[in-house]
């Protein structure tokens, strides 16, 4: 007797499965996204300002707290009590947040703000 779900493609009862020595299991997304590492955090996107950049509301961003900030990267920024997902720009020796929507003006990252993590990947569970 076998519990439902315990067949793995190799443990057949009658004919030996030719795949038995080559089983690999399903693809592990946590592995691909490196989610088990201490420096990886998931962050949910709210708002539509970054649609042009391909980031939609509801997306799960994979944020890397060990990665250094860089011009053009998308970052998680803690500023004035808020958690923002914003594009970074480096201008005149200062970090700026560049708005996703054309026509909006950016803002300098103030001294008391924190560039919390750099976005390295994205998961969208419904397309």
């Amino acid at each position, binding site marked *: 007797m076998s519990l439902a779900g315990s067949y793995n493609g190799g443990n057949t009862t009658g004919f030996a499965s030719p795949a038995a020595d080559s089983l690999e299991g399903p693809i592990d997304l946590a592995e691909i996204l490196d989610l088990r*590492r201490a*420096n990886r955090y998931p962050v949910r996107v709210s708002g539509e300002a970054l649609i042009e950049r391909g980031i939609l509301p509801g997306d799960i961003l994979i944020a890397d707290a060990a990665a250094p900030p860089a011009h053009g990267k998308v970052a998680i920024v803690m500023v004035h009590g808020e958690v*923002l997902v914003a594009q970074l720009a480096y201008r005149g020796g200062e970090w700026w947040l560049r708005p996703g929507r054309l026509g909006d003006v950016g803002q300098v990252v103030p001294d008391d703000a924190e560039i919390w993590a750099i976005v390295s990947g994205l998961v969208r569970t419904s397309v």
Partner: protein
Amino acid sequence: MALYGLIDGNSFYCSCEQAFDPALRDKPVVVLSNNDGCVIARSALAKAVGIKMGDPWHLIRRRPELSEVVAKSSNYSHYGDLSRRVFEILGAHVQRLEPYSIDETFLDLAPVTGDLMEFCQMLRGAVRQIAKIPTCVGVGPSKTIAKAANKLAKSRPELNGVCDLRDEATRVALYQDLGIGEVWGIGGKTAEKLAARGVRTVADFLRLDPRKVRDMMSVVGARVQAELRDVSCLPLSLMAPQRKGIAVTRSFGMPITDWWTMREAVASYATRAGEKLREHGLLASTMTVLLHTNPHNGDPWYSNQHSARIEATNDTTSLIGEAIRMLEPMWRAGFRYSKAGIMLGELIDAGSQPMSLFPTKDPVRSARAMAALDAVNGRFGRDTLRPLATGISRTWTAKAMNLSPRYTTRVGEILVGTAY
């Protein structure tokens, strides 16, 4: 030559809260014990407005000077995950390390080459950047000295988070003023006993003849004395010692007055105890069940507990059955119960279980059912699948009025960022 570091998180629980909620960063924050009872952690600002450890929050919250204070319910899923991250970050730089408590890690610093202070600052920086937790480090030739150094690093901002007590002259000067009760391993009772003999500071303590210390305080005291002198007697424990008992006792969010609710609560504690047993690969062979009313609020006092030997098991359904059987004769209607609990003892390795002549459960089927239960709950979150005996509405669960999200362990609760 032995060399140890002790790194710990500053106001660890508060820092965990502030790490993920920028609105808390410039506010005084406290974290409350289970059931939102007493203050168990204070941010620096909360300390500054005079809140003490153990203060009952419902009694002090109305004080005008505390109007800005944010009180959070304890969110151990979140703190545990950040603790795991801190340990992993440290493990990337230090070969041997001991997770001493949720917010303290002993480090073997003997192999470190180069500037040790720079190394310690690098560790602090990495933990700060990646796990978002500010820390302090104490360094010394024994764990006891490292622990004392860590305390100093925290209380003296001019040390910039790292205190180095490798140098004997520095220690000797420090020991003149350091109270013996401040030392790791010396409890309040022992400190009183020593004070009665005129031993108040560490310097006094080190002047005592080791043989006399051994007579007075057994080998533990002798070890503390040697460790303070710089003779390392306590090596790193790289593995947690095997547990001697498992206890799940909790205060209820509201007093329980009816049998079925009490039965649910105790069944749920038995369920949690079973999970803990299986996590550690253990079976329990004794069980204690206890319950009592609140001794502090004027309710009529009733307290009872019962212990018995049980067939060695880690099967949740067996544990619930035993617990309810022990609970039934203790139940008295008409009381307002505030707390109940289960304690399991005489734990043995699941592998070394002596064969029972008349097992009441097929051990193979039981192991399979429990493995399936744990697999579902491991994948989809605690209590996704649970015995019906533990109830559906669970009105008795502890109060947690201001619980933050489980930011890194539940996909429905992760940090939300607003697109800019």
